[in-house]
């Protein structure tokens, strides 16, 4: 937030959207937070009561939109997998995989179980190092970057099996995501310098807006473990968005969702893209993938077997044979209840 190069000169930019948020927070501050907060109580917060600005969805979008310089132009490849192989012992999980993720698109990465989707994902986010090949992101080779550095460079992810910080509140979870954008460290925090306090305030304001953005704002003060499954999935997305990613990677975000929830999730993913983010989506559910993605890459046995628009890919006989294993006509009915 507030990326003014001068650091301390935040005062010069008071007209800024999110700064105006903290200015309005004065009135209720006098009262102390409490009963119920932190206790195992289901508590709904009427966020707009504290932050009336957040009722304006356009402003929420504006705050959530990443405040970062992306070198890649819209439509150009933001992330390039160049001939990437990942080998575990004798098993080749990825075999010379090459594809691009273009800035501003929603790319679907699909394939049957064990096809190497998650491995590709892990190779991008630094969990595994490619045995061979390069991952180039926004003009930079990721190479030996550590996992937290890759997040700082601008790749954020969610987890296939939800991994939230359960004992922290929803809001705190999201604020942890903003850590990558903090510039004061331990000495600043020890002495509570002005810049540190400003950063904290900005982080919380932005996090609250992100919570509203994904639709769990009302549960901000609830511990993450007390949220419903769907809310937890959304909270994971919120936490990833808080890192201000250039590329947001969602690993099966709709697993375990019912059709209505999937529909809502598709809207959210589109909304994230429309807010200026690039999205990589790994998903089993063909209907969701076809409904939301701009392009699809299909993996099988660690190789790319097809790439193109959802229509082209789902019509590709190789894909149908490998992934769906059913004739074309049955595809329409069959995929709705495909295993999640």
């Amino acid at each position, binding site marked *: 937030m507030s990326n003014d190069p001068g650091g301390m000169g935040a005062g010069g930019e008071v007209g800024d959207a999110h700064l105006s948020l903290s200015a309005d927070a004065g009135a209720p501050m006098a009262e102390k937070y409490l009963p119920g907060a932190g206790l195992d109580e289901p508590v709904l917060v*009427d966020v707009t009561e504290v932050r009336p600005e957040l009722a304006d969805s356009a402003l929420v979008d504006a705050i959530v939109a*990443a*405040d970062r310089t992306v070198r890649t132009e819209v439509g150009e490849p933001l992330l390039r997998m160049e001939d990437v192989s990942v080998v575990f012992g004798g098993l080749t999980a990825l075999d010379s995989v090459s594809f691009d993720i273009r800035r501003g698109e929603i790319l679907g990465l699909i394939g049957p179980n064990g096809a190497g989707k998650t491995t590709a994902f892990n190779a991008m986010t630094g969990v595994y190092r490619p045995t061979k090949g390069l991952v180039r992101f926004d003009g930079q080779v990721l190479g030996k970057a550590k996992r937290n550095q890759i997040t700082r460079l601008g790749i954020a992810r969610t987890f296939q099996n939800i991994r939230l910080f359960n004992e922290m509140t929803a809001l705190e979870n999201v604020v942890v995501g903003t850590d990558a954008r903090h510039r004061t460290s331990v000495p600043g925090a*020890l002495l509570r310098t002005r810049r540190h306090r400003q950063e904290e305030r900005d982080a919380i304001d932005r996090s609250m807006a992100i919570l509203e953005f994904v639709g769990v704002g009302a549960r901000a003060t609830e511990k993450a473990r007390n949220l419903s499954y769907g809310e937890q999935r959304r909270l994971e997305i919120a936490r990833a968005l808080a890192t201000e990613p250039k590329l947001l990677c969602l690993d099966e975000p709709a697993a375990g969702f019912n059709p209505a929830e999937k529909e809502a999730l598709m809207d959210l993913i589109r909304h994230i893209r429309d807010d200026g983010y690039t999205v990589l989506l790994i998903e089993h559910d063909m209907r969701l993938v076809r409904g939301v993605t701009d392009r699809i890459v299909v993996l099988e046995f660690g190789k790319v077997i097809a790439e193109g628009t959802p229509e082209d890919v789902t019509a590709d006989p190789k894909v149908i044979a490998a992934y769906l294993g059913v004739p074309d006509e049955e595809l329409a009915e069959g995929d709705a209840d495909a295993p999640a």
Partner: protein
Amino acid sequence: MSTSTPAESNGAAGTNGAAQPVRPRPELPPAGQTPVRQRAHGGAGDRLRLWWDALARPAQWGIGVPFVVFIALLPILNIPVLTTVGTNFGAVMAQFGMYALIAIGLNVVVGQAGLLDLGYVGFYAIGAYTLAILTSPDSPWNVTQPEGWLSDDWAWLAILPVAVAITAMSGLVLGSPTLRLRGDYLAIVTLGFGEIVRLLADNLDEITGGGQGLKSVAYPRLGVTEELPNGVFSAGNVGSTLNSGVWWFWLSLVFIIISLMLVGNLERSRVGRAWVAIREDEDAAEIMGVPTFKFKLWAFVIGASIGGVSGAIYAGQVQFVIPTNFNIINSVLFLCAVVLGGQGNKLGVILGAFIIVYLPNFFLGRTSLFGIPIDGSEIANYKYLFFGVALMVLMIFRPQGLIPVRQKLLTYGRELYVAARRTLAKMSDGGPQAAYATSAPASGTVGTRSGGADGAATTERTGDDEPTDGRNR
């Protein structure tokens, strides 16, 4: 001017100016059922916490300051129920002060960051030995007069920062290689560290005096009078109500308050959040961009420094250090204080430290309790047995400790908690069921921007031009 512009698809819906600006608020349940607050009021601790948090800031000061003063005056008031018979109560409180500091430091490592450190006594020893080596006449590196240049009057105070710095360095040296390990492996390596420090102290005869230890360590020379030629902090100040133990307790209290404030600042910042995130799921924290190794190292260094302060206070108070005072059993006792009091809760671990120090001393020399004749000294000798049993019982019935932690990590998020409270107040006439009933469809009613039924409206709303303005900062 940022280069990030919305994707083309944003423009497609951009013509729609009729975006809904107002998002519906969560519907509050109707009034008129059983109060929901009762669930919040779980135990006495929770009730106390609620009461305290509900107080205004001046009221909190108004209660907090007299309470701290009362604690400080405890050794002087010498309340008959509390006082100890076998040892001087002032000395007991001085020991409590040192243990409380240690508990605060160890709590950063174990309670906050979740790193099991079984060699914490090593830092305590390094703090004590640094002070002793630099100020004891038995040591070849003595810098105090007459051999050295430092006046005895200021030696303790001058060497204290050195002791803290060296302990912090030792935390860095121990942490850099070992913090790549996790869980049990880390615990074993730190256990080894604690032993290494003690063995070094025992075997580097020329510097540490070996098993003989180092005598005549410096202490603050303050309040020198005719009766007390060495000042109030001297071990010679015995007998009177204001003995050296009381003075050392007050000095510890100052350091306790300073550490509580600094550690509290960290807790409610990015650092504290990172620690809790590391404790909860280190990999997830790392992938969310938290430099986990750096923050673990900081936890170690901060914990070590506070341990070093305590060590320096110890060395000054007893004016004498020997290796046997830094046995590994002390590490276990420190850890016991943290676990007993409540890992992660600063005040909890201080209570833990009090229990660890006070209980054995309470029994020491006591011959009857409630009229029943007992051999108190014998009971005190079995303190490790009793603490072991107490820990086992605690782990079964209250694994979170006596005063469990309730995190409030966000300093500036208070307005939200206010909102939560107000919502709860409105619900206080509705039952818990009502509360659950509203929470269930929360994502649908509140998060309409992405709610299933509102899907169409959501996509329309994205067409505003404002997002671009907001981004081009």
